[in-house]
């Protein structure tokens, strides 16, 4: 019984190996290219000059607004002081 089982295993292994080799033989194709003269026409496409100028640095508005009013100081000019001597009605 054992020799018969070993024979079957060997046979199935050989069959599988033959099955894997078969597609490689089928995909081998020959391609032919014709390098004869061809008339190729076309136009070169490139950006116009204004598109290829130097990289522009982003310019942001300044955040700090330089402005100071002296109106409060002007309105306090010569302001008589808040007095210590401003009693309630005695």
């Amino acid at each position, binding site marked *: 019984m054992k020799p018969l089982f070993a024979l079957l295993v060997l046979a199935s292994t050989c069959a599988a190996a033959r099955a894997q080799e078969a597609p490689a033989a089928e995909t081998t194709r020959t391609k032919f290219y014709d390098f004869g003269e061809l008339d190729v026409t076309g136009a070169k496409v490139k950006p116009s000059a204004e598109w290829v100028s130097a990289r522009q640095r982003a310019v942001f508005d300044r955040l700090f607004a330089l402005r*100071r009013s002296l109106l409060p100081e002007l309105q306090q000019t010569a302001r008589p002081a*808040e007095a210590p001597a401003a009693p309630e009605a005695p």
Partner: protein
Amino acid sequence: MSLAALLSVVVGLLGADPARLERWSASPGTRLELARALSEADAPTLATGALVEALLLENGRPEDFGAALEAFPLSLDARPPVPASLVKLAAVPDLGLTDNQRALKAWLAGAAFLQAGDPVAATVQLQLVPPGTVVFPAARVLLGVAAVSGRSRDFTRAARDFQQAIEEADVSPHHRHDVVRQARRVALLGLGRVFYEVGTATGELQQLAVAQYYYRRLPLEAQEQVAGAFETAWVFLMAGEPQRALGAVHAARAPAVLHPAGPELRLVEAAAYQSLCRYAESRVALDELRHQYLAHLAPVTRLAAALDAEPGLDAAEVRARVRTLPVDVAALVLRHPAVRREARALEALRAEARRVGEAAPVAALAGRLEAVADVRLASGLRAAVRAVATDLARLDVAASELQIDVLEAQGERLEDAILAGASDETPPELRLPSMGQEWQRWAFDGTWYGDEITSFRSTLSAVCPADDAPKAGDTP
């Protein structure tokens, strides 16, 4: 009649009974007598208080008011203070008053109306002051202030009033009087401010040049010079002259001057350096501003809120709270004009009370005035804490914006340097020397000093690329 004589007569007539003395001093006439006597005794603060009390009692005789008014010390600022309650003077009839007394009455009432926030009524009173009187130049100054205090803000009229104050002060027969000389100085300051406002609003450089002219005419030793130096820095900065702005900043920041606008001076300095493309110096000024003041914004804001929640604190308690702040910020509060004015008035009141003596009517008057002065000092301290918190919050925003601008410009400069083939080291013009802690920074192009000096001259150039060089009127 001298105070001692008056009191001896009163005490002789009434005896030493405090109740009778109090009743005596409660009548308007006796308060006016007291005011006049106190003024003669060189106690102007007490005299002012007695006059105000007499006004509050009403029913005084006009001739009594006139006599008290003539004894009234004259000053445009806090020496002595003019209480807002003096608006009642406007209702005192002119009948029986001399020309000079009428002028004094109108001037004091006008000043009181201005202080009470009624520039229209102030203008009516101040225009009653006739030329040739000692208070006429001072009245023109107050008219100029009233012109810009209303809704219309008439700068042309203000300039005319200030200029007239100067002209009158120069030809006044009283030109040596303190109040006349003071009016002249304050009018110069007012003219500088008027032309600055007009110049910055219209963008006309000529107006800013006129403002510079008036600031320059302020006497060097005048107390108005402190404000003048700070404001001159702004004038130069807005006129596109950052080098000269820096000179004014350094003059205002001289160690001998305790300038209340210290934090803002740092911002002006940083902005001036930025205009010159000297970004490293600009950042140093901003760092100092942040380290010395802006870092303490939170405690000041908290203190302002805490004081609002405790309205009953007296001056000593509020002052103790202020002293818990970091020292530089506490100094800003204690140096605030509102605090200094009230503190000075309280000290003057106490000194006068000690000098005049313990006579019952005077002691009672001094006690009442001191209680009021204490409340006003506490109020001044609270106002100063609020003002400092508001100022620092405003400067915090401005400094952050300026810092972003400076960092951005500095980054661009570094990028340009690297693209031009430099190494990645900081370009020489962006470096600052490193000095020890004992040196103060006098940031004129890397110059340092270790002692107070009387004058200093230096030149400073912009390091902007040719296309960005600052031009006249080119403000950042």
